[in-house]
């Protein structure tokens, strides 16, 4: 069993590396973000990317989807993209019953949600009604219409992008919806050198984007997800997760703290992230690097000042505790 795991591990690490490198042919200078997205994928979660328009969110999502599904046939993932708009209706997502003239009966026409990789572009432009439609499928991988429940694909990964809520024509996502995203990452601008590189090579990059090869199959992704579950997480790190989640609930400056679900999501992400970093155990580094993306969007602060500092201070406390520990 142990040896089996080690073999799997080497295989998985290799696969992940391949996937990341594949994405990097299009997305330059965003290694840490790519790692986080892959982490969310492997942790069986969903990811929300937030930033100003034109930072490469959509391209990123598309590239990742293509790296899994490819643009050729075979055992490829099914990739759907929905552009969210204010007039989007839930049935546009989940599908609807339509009347079949020939058979004289209603048949269910599946919506775009029935896919492997879903790119929900500009998710916060849709009305709350549509947001609610996403709740069930994101949490339970199934869709219920009337009294019939349709299961989604085994591999169902949502990449949502959103513009900062300060922008016009956006609705803030409800807390329940946000909680279902394992991570929210800021895409951010690339550094100056990379930017210059992009300008110099934009033609070839565009070319790459069209020709993104498939790096991993759906089965391979599912295998990776299984492997990630077996990554070892030390009880002290579990304790650290517990501490920080509880701390967010017991703070004056926080209106709504992190839920237990977020704690579980955090642990799943930690395991996946360790695997992404080529390790079979979770470390303090994983904890520190993931705490912000996993927890930030689940906490409602009383004011801006708290938002900018409070979580960092909590993480720092926990990290200091961990580094002080003498485990052996």
């Amino acid at each position, binding site marked *: 069993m142990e040896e089996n795991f080690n073999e799997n591990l080497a295989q998985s690490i290799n696969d992940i590396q391949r996937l990341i490198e594949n994405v990097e042919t299009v997305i330059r200078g965003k290694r840490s973000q790519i790692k986080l997205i892959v982490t969310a994928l492997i942790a069986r979660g969903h990811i929300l990317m937030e930033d100003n328009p034109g930072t490469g969110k959509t391209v990123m999502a598309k590239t990742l989807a293509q790296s899994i599904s490819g643009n050729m046939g075979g055992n490829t993932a099914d990739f759907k993209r929905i552009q969210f708009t204010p007039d989007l209706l839930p049935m546009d997502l989940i599908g609807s019953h339509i009347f079949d003239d020939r058979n004289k009966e209603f048949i269910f026409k599946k919506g775009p949600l029935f896919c492997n990789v879903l790119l929900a572009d500009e998710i916060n432009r849709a009305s709350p009604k549509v947001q609610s439609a996403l709740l069930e499928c994101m949490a339970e991988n199934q869709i219920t219409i009337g009294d019939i429940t349709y299961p989604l694909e085994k591999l169902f990964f949502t990449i949502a992008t959103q513009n900062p809520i300060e922008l016009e024509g956006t609705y803030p996502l409800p807390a329940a919806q946000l909680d279902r995203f394992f991570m929210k990452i800021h895409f951010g601008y690339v550094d100056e050198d990379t930017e210059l590189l992009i300008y110099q090579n934009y033609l070839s990059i565009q070319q790459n984007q069209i020709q993104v090869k498939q790096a991993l199959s759906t089965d391979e992704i599912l295998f990776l997800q299984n492997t990630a579950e077996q990554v070892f997480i*030390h009880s002290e790190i579990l304790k650290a997760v517990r501490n920080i989640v509880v701390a967010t609930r017991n703070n004056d400056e926080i209106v709504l703290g992190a839920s237990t679900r977020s704690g579980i999501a955090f642990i799943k992400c930690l395991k996946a992230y360790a695997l992404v970093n080529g390790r*079979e155990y*979770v470390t*303090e580094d994983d904890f520190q690097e993931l705490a912000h993306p996993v927890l930030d969007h689940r906490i409602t602060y009383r004011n801006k000042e708290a938002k900018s*500092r*409070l979580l960092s201070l909590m993480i720092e406390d926990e990290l*200091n505790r961990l*580094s002080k520990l003498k485990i052996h």
Partner: protein
Amino acid sequence: MILEKSNNIRKVAMQCLLLALPTILFAFLILHRLNEAYPILKNQWIYQGIYFALGVLLSIVFYGKRFRFVSTTILLCLLFYIGYKLLRKISVGEFDMFFFSVQYGVFVFIFIIGWLVGSGFSRRHIFTISWVLILFCIEIILISKVAVVSASVIVFSFAPVLLYGFYIIYTAELVRKLNERQTSFGWYIARRMFGFMAVVLVVIAIIFLLFRKELFTLERAWKNVQPDYSGKNNNSQSLTKTNRDGTLSNNGQMPLGGSLNKTKQLVFVAHLDNPLPESDIQNPLYFTANYYTKFDSATQAFETDSLMPYNDLFAPDPSEYPLFFTQTDSSVIKNSQAILSRKVVETQVYKVALSAKDFIAPNTAFAMQPIPVPNEYEGQYSSAYNAKMWVSDLNSAYFVYNPAGDSSLEKFQEQRFALLRPDTIYTGIDSSFIHYYTKIPQGSTYKKIEELAYDIVRKDSAQSTIDKIIAIRNYFLSKDEFGQPLFQYTDNPGEPGLPNANKLSYFLFENRKGYCAYFAGATLFMLRALHIPSRIATGFLTVDRSSKNPGWYWFYEDQAHAWVQAFFPGYGWIDFDTTIPDINTQQAPQPDGTPPLGTQKVYFVADGTIENIDTSKKLMQLSVNKILYKEKSFSAKETVSINTDIAFARCTSDTGLLKISDLTKDMHISAASYDASLDKAAFIKTADTAAYILNYLKKPISIDEIKVIEQAGNGKKSERRFLNIQALNWSKILWVILFALIIFMLLIIFAPFIIWQYFNIRAGRKIQTTNTAVLFYLNQLGYARRNLSPQAFAENIDKKFMTDFNRFNSIYQKDKYSKLPLSDDEQQFATNFYKTFIRQLKSKIYWKERWKQFFHLSNTLFFFMKH
């Protein structure tokens, strides 16, 4: 959280209750004492305390609500200033104005202090520590105001600050760390507080129980050391001297000149029971220590003379004599040449600061019996003895002294004068005696004194000896042509302008100011000039203070006195005190204590040396020289050995309490028993020997009191063994403190280095310790991890110094968090990593920079706060 946030109402309430309330109570105490020490505060400590309380409470409530500190405080000051201006406008009259503005100033000052303290409690982390330090400083200032600093004064002034300090630092942190959301919040606090207080109380109780005896001994020793009689202080004289062990004795020499040094220190307590007829005034009231019979004209000092003829000074050493055995010297009575109006009087003396070796009693003492100090007075008195004196009925402090209108005393004086008046010539007295006690140095100045004496006597046409003495007394009390007193009493008479000028003639003819030694000295020479045998006696003067404990007298150091004794044939030496009263300084009444009552009846005393002692079974074998039984002394012809049971025995020496384990073989002790059953033994004849009596007593004899007698030759050896308090050497203590401070400073400075050495030694043993050492070294060099994750930090370091820290870090993390074991390769790398890493760092950082950074203590502190 460092983030400033508004305090929850519960937290504010807790701060008010747990921090502000004790602080306010403490402030009341401090303010009260400050008011006592500084009259400028006008003794309005209650108002001041209220101002302070207002400041603290308002500040805590105010700053509980996220207000900015600096701006609000400036605003507050501004408000006070405006208030002050308004007050100026409103107030009428110059005096009102001054009064109000002072009051207002005090109010503002104290309120602002309270305000700062409150804000400190509310906001600042380390504030409590600085606050306690400030209180300590105030306490030190207050102690400097205390007249007689003793160990207990220090303990009792610092103990509250210490307690308060412990309390406030602990509680402030507790309140700060508080999670107000917690359920059963009050119970949590109460539990913590009770637990903490219990621990503190238990610790203090233990300390007190363990060191109580030491504290009292120290207290006594400390008291003794207080005045500095080191002799270096040239312009200061004292009638007493401090011995090497810190106890007091009367001086063997009484030089004239300088100022008299007086302190309020209890020297001994004595009991007398010989009141004058129809009066409660005791007779005699002078306790004599020494006689000065010689005068050294070169040093102008009166001296004792062991070769004085008819030596009637009984000077036994009570510390060398066994307990309960009486030492008698009947030659003293013979030498006193007194047969008329004499009787035997007893006194008990309980020593406090008086040296154990000293013997003080009214003259003429002839017997001394050391007695134990009762158990309950152990800390108060060091040792005690009974003395018997051959006391003259005529001898009293009131003999020539101003009776101050007391008719019974006047009558008493008249009777005595009448009794002595027939004595005018000294016939039939040994001529060598007369010659010795009437000797005056040669010289014109002494001639002048002689002339003055004759003048005085002639003016009063005094014929008899007593009238001559009264004439001299009257001369000192007389008034000049302006109706002013001719002589004045002063502790600080000043020096004659010319060096080596005769101080006595300066006193008699020019200055006419002095203390007892001057009056006694002048009187002595005048009496001797008139051929009246006389000498100076020194000792202690009784002051009758209260009628609470009749017969008990408390002798403070400022009661040390010198006076003259004149010889009357048949009546012997009689005290005459010609010192005039001190009209300038009012004697502050000193409190009397409780007299040491309840001495137990002793039934059996044995004097001997220890043959064998079993400290576990509490049995002792004593080889006895002599015993005291039924108040009769029996000596053993040959030493007899007896078994004694010392389970309940109290061991003492003159320097304090001893433990039974301090007793060793061959020690000379006296053992006393209060066992009443011993009394029932067989009929005793005086002819019996000790061995015979001992046969009849039941064995083992239970001993209640053991006193170790320090033999003269044995002194040095025993010094170390006993709980012997040496005189504290202040310069030595200062040096020790200075030395300790330097060591402490060095430790602080070299702390980073020492800690580094510690980590260095441990590095390499385990990956964990290596990591700590590496982190510490980097931290000392100014590369702290701060908020970076370990990996990011390691990568930074690698980039900067071309090291392999990241790899080590990942191995460390694996070792810490993975369940897989490290591979040999990793293990190898981790063990070798440390030395190469440090070498690499050293080569990359210039040594000057390295050393500069390395000794930053703040770096070290930061490290230990983080890790």
